[in-house]
């Protein structure tokens, strides 16, 4: 039963991926007569005939010389080989190479943000649920309204201003040397942490509040469940009840929201990376956008979507372990 469920989820994820990659293939081809148009280099001082040669060359180079269907087949074949295409940047680097360079740096930010906000969020959320109705709880409620109303990039700017420029506690902007001179030495790691402090802070503030709120709500919901009373009636101590019965069940809705945030892990840092000039996927994407590097943009898009699909799938499969009730059928 479980295996068939797992297989079903995997097949569905593959199906969604195919829909997404098809969309990804056709979106840049919508509304333009010549899809290769976006790939042509600037005309510069070239004459018509010269420019035609260049255009022809570009079409061949980027595979626009065959029918759309054949292009699609090629595109899918390329993906099978994990080839996301070639960037228009000078030197024609592979999109996968560029992503490979930037991905670790984004992960530094987003994974630590996720962990920190999750840990603190769990603590705060449990505390607020525990101290339900007291000032801790009220504060959390207000904080959640405020944190949604304060966009992360504004928080980032203010942190950069106050902690970076005024108090000079942290670098207000990322030092690119950090990336260039990274060598796994303790010092280099320190430099990275030092630089990552403000971006992580600005992202965790919202994350902490979000996770606290989810945790609080689901802990309260679970606390009201009968089996918690059963557990207490068994004579289990408060902490045992909390850890073994309440939190374990409260994790279920939390797992969904963690899954959601993992799927948005890489793309979510775009604005923060921009504020701090952090050399991650977000800035790569914005660079691609500002230089009209379509293959790179679409490659990143597909990568992010695939990552999200994978994250969702993993969450769903994780759910099977976490919640024995999930076997067959769609939870939604």
């Amino acid at each position, binding site marked *: 039963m479980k295996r068939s469920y797992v297989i079903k989820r995997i097949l569905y994820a593959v199906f969604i991926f195919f*829909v*997404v990659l098809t969309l990804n293939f056709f979106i840049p081809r919508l509304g333009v007569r010549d899809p290769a148009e976006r790939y042509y280099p600037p005309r510069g001082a070239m004459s018509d005939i010269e420019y035609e040669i260049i255009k022809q060359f570009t079409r061949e180079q980027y595979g626009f010389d065959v029918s759309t269907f054949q292009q699609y087949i090629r595109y899918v074949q390329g993906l099978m080989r994990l080839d996301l295409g070639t960037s228009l940047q000078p030197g024609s680097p592979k999109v996968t190479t560029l992503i490979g360079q930037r991905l670790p740096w984004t992960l530094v930010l987003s994974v630590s943000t996720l962990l920190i906000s999750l840990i603190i969020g769990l603590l705060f959320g449990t505390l607020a649920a525990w101290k339900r109705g007291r000032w801790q709880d009220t504060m959390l409620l207000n904080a959640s309204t405020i944190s949604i*109303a304060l*966009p992360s990039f504004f928080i980032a700017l203010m942190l950069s201003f106050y902690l970076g420029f005024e108090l000079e506690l942290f670098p207000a902007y990322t030092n690119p040397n950090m990336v260039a001179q990274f060598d796994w030495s303790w010092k280099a790691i320190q430099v990275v942490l030092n630089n990552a402090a403000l971006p992580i802070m600005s992202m965790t503030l919202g994350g902490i509040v979000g996770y606290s709120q989810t945790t609080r709500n689901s802990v309260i919901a679970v606390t009201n469940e009968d089996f918690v009373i059963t557990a207490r009636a068994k004579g289990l101590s408060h902490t045992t009840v909390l850890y073994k019965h309440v939190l374990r069940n409260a994790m279920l809705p939390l797992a969904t929201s963690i899954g959601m945030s993992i799927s948005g892990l890489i793309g979510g840092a775009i604005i923060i990376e921009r*504020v701090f000039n952090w050399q991650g996927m977000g800035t790569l994407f914005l660079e691609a956008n500002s230089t009209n590097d379509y293959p790179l943009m679409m490659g990143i898009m597909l990568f992010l979507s695939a990552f999200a699909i994978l994250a969702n799938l993993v969450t769903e499969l994780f759910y099977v372990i976490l919640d024995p009730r999930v076997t067959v059928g769609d939870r939604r």
Partner: protein
Amino acid sequence: MSERSVFLRVAQRGSSFLSLVKKLWQHPKGRVGLILVGFLVLVAVLAPVLAPYDPYDVTQRAEKGLRPSLQHPLGTTITTGQDIFSMLIYGSRVSLMIGISTGVVLAFLGALMGVMAGYIGGFVDNLIMRIVDVLLVIPTLPLIIVLTNFLGRSYFVIVLVFVLFGWTGLARIIRSLVLVLKNSNYVKAAELAGASRWYVMTKHILPGTSHLIIMNTTLTCAGIMVAEAGLSFLGLGDPTAISWGKMLAEAQGGGALLFGAWWWILAPGAGIFLAVFSFMRIGIVMEEVFNPRMKASSSIYKLFKHLNNTYLEEVFRSMEDEECPESSQEPDYLDASHAEGPP
């Protein structure tokens, strides 16, 4: 299980829009939200009257980088000497316009999709839910950036993109509610009486969902305002208009941090905060009004804080057999507007 009852409760409280506003007004937090939104709308409409300077005037070069003062309540920009207070006032127009228009269109689309998926079911439901699944995995912000690149940078495109990709959340909520409503007795009765699908959908299902839609719309408006600010901050908004997000982008690009011009960052941030906060307030209060359980549970704890011990003792004493309770009625000093059962 409890979700279902919540939905039904929300659905059954159908009443006119006016009474809703009235309810919001009676709620202290709701009143704050309503006043703030009204204030913002007023500011947006009266922007030309209220703004002391022309916010588009980049020619005041002698006035560059001024700190807040009486002449310029929020100072001026470093690069062009524009009056930040006036920019702030004009910025409300973009925020409100985008937020409200997108929110309303989104509500229509989301409700339509949700009702179709929920009520018609079958193939339509399947199709819509598969679309939802697909849209859910495509990263929204990058997609919006790609589309603005392809379609051009204008507010029309931004609204379009927000609408095209933002309806999924509402549609899912509405769908679950419709699934509940569909099996409710009055809908069944209407169907048995031979009402057409369309009739049932427009006369029974839609009104049943209206409150959820309104509530979600206010929250969506708030969310869209944040998203719009983010897009403008990334330089993807309309380049000619003044918006709060763009003000922040200009502040960052113009070196507000380097110059220590905190007022240039704080002002648009406060604008965004105020607008989003007020809409969220209304949304949250609506949630409380429609779903009083939430409020009841939180107010119990407040109550405990102010619990009058002598009163409680009195209650306990009244339970004794010997003292025959003359006054089993409640003293009115613990009175509140809602009477609800225990959680």
